[in-house]
């Protein structure tokens, strides 16, 4: 690029690419950071403040009056608001919800009936009353505290067990693995026939496969649902089973698989096949011993596509798989959580990250094949 090698222009290019990259990654980064934050902090401040100390308005309760001790003619309840290893610096406190920061930390506040309350910076408090205090519930204390950033895996621990994400993770694997592996061989044989064998109707079949590539899934849903219900009723088995969804994913994935593999196989050098044929090899041997090993990159591309698609799928799973704990996949669970835990971002962010982590790992480790498959699958007629 001779003409554009001028300095300011290069700077503009760097800057705009940088901005675009930030724009594209920041939503995911926000999710990841949030999922690791303490859930009180997550609810109180934006994730971009995650690394700075935040000021929070909190509520605590003094120990029960039953623990009071008599000292210097008064009755004293003492303790700390920051129990359980919480670290924070209290700056103000109060006892009325309307004035949660009425007094500065360390001040001695009269809170009625002659009682005196002090909350110090380290969170320790002392409530002194001239007469014996009654009841079992402790005095409510509102306080403002500067809380240092806290990162934790608690959110993950919670969603994996209590919210059923762990079970759904296994379900998703159960759906995705066979749905990825089984179609490969079926598609490969078909692709070889379409690429290298001569028979009447070949061109039409190729055209049909290309046409089926774009048939919307929506066309298949109702007829197949009826079919599955019919088959289930006829044999007395449940209509929604893993076998059913594996076969459905295979059927829906086949056009792309056949198309990708046929294009790749058709590009293999003719000489190899001809020399093998001269040596007396039949089509079966040529396919198994020569074409299949040579087609590995295309097989890998398809496998990645199919895995990402079956793992990320929601529609097929919602129609062909039940919603019990042993069948609900991650995407379905996430949709349910969006409905039931709409405001609990610590649950949602952690759950979402669990659902996207497997595809991301696949993506980053096998990106090369993914790109190659995309190019083979769509650049045509250009």
């Amino acid at each position, binding site marked *: 690029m001779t*003409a554009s090698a001028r300095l300011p222009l290069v700077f503009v290019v760097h800057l705009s690419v*940088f901005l675009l990259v930030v724009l594209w990654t920041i939503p995911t980064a926000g999710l990841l950071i949030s999922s690791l934050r303490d859930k009180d902090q997550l609810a109180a401040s934006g994730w971009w403040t995650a690394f700075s100390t935040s000021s929070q308005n909190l509520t605590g309760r003094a120990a029960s009056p039953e623990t009071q001790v008599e000292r210097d003619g008064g009755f004293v309840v003492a303790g700390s608001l920051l129990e359980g290893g919480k670290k924070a610096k209290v700056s103000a406190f109060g006892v009325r919800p309307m004035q949660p920061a009425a007094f500065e930390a360390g001040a001695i506040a009269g809170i009625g009936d002659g009682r005196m309350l002090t909350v110090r910076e380290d969170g320790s408090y002392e409530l002194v009353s001239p007469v014996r205090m009654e009841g079992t519930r402790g005095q409510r204390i509102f306080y403002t505290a500067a809380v240092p950033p806290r990162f934790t895996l608690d959110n993950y621990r919670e969603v994996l067990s209590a919210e059923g994400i762990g079970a759904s993770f296994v379900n998703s694997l159960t759906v995705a693995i066979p749905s990825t592996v089984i179609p490969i061989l079926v598609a490969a044989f*078909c692709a070889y026939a379409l690429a290298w064998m001569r028979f009447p109707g070949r061109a039409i079949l190729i055209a049909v496969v*290309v046409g089926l590539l774009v048939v919307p899934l929506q066309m298949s849903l109702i007829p197949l649902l009826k079919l599955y219900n019919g088959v289930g009723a006829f044999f007395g088995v449940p209509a929604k089973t893993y076998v059913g969804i594996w076969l459905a994913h295979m059927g*829906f994935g086949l056009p792309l698989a056949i198309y990708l593999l046929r294009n790749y196989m058709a590009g293999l050098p003719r000489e190899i096949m001809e020399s093998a044929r001269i040596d007396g090899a039949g089509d079966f041997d040529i396919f198994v011993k020569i074409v299949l090993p040579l087609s590995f990159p295309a097989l890998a591309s398809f496998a990645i596509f199919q895995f990402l698609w079956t793992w*990320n799928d929601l529609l097929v799973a919602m129609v062909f798989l039940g919603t019990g704990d042993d069948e609900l996949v991650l995407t379905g669970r996430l949709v349910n959580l*969006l409905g039931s835990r709409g405001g609990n971002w610590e649950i949602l962010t952690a759950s979402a990250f669990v659902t996207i982590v497997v595809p991301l790992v*696949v993506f980053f480790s096998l990106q090369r094949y993914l790109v190659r498959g995309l190019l083979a699958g769509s650049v045509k007629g250009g």
Partner: protein
Amino acid sequence: MNQLFYAVTTMAAGVLACVAYFYVTNRLLDRVFLSKGFTGAQASRNLRRANAIRPWLFMAPAIVALAVYLVYPVFESVRLSFHGRDGRAFVGLDNYLWMVTDGEFRQSIVNNFLWLLVVPALSTVFGLVIAALTDRIWWGNLARTLIFMPMAISFVGAAVIWKFVYDYRSAGNEQIGLLNALVVWLGAAPEAWMTIPFWNNFFLMAILIWIQTGFAMVILSAALRGIPQETVEAAVIDGANGVQIFFRIMVPQIRGAIAVVWTTITILVLKVFDIVLAMTNGQWQTQVLANLMFDWMFRGGGDFGRGAAIAVVIMMLVVPIMIWNIRNATRETEGR
């Protein structure tokens, strides 16, 4: 874990069954039409017959699966669209007439056209710009990887990510959604973005654009690299500036790739379902055809007639692209 074991076992069984099928039928064919041991005409006739049957043996499982899962349903859906809610009574064009008068359906059509206009266009433009820019800098590969990454994320996962970005709390509270925090920081009032009719469609589209730009970028970046360097150099010598080179020399040469990207994303847009379901489920006038179809499939026990009719409408919108694809593919195979 038991379940995973079951899955892996079934998978192994399935693969083994496939191998066994292909191996056994192929052997059987060789047995039935022996070519060795015969002489002359008999041998060549047997060989010819075996070779006429073999392709169909290779293709049989795939053809059966395609027929059951894609071809038969297309015809069945069309048939069902002329029938009542349980698929038994013939109702003629009733389902289609209902559609025309149904407010929700018309809303979906309008929204779908909005999606069709905006998403493919912006994804392609962003993809093209990013492809062209990242080609010139040393960390272009890293940038491309990061922009490509949303491709791997499920629509539902993306919906959660963006719902968090769009999160809304009433004015005066600390905003934890990035967009509203930005808006407040700029001095405006926070908004519940999902509930603003018409504009909320665009907030949903942003999610799909975010996902699909990477796809467009990868395809267009490969196409840009395929441009012969001489054409660019000739333009430089003729005194063209960067912008002119890009629009007059480069873009026309990758027109084919742009068309492929555009049509691929168009088809995806027609099928988009997860994003709308997860973000709004069609509320606040964001309904689209695919979600409406799903809705009718199960609404009140399910109305298969109306559901199928909506599916047929989606199919109709896809058909032109399908024909265009088939034409291109046939031309390509004939050229071989």
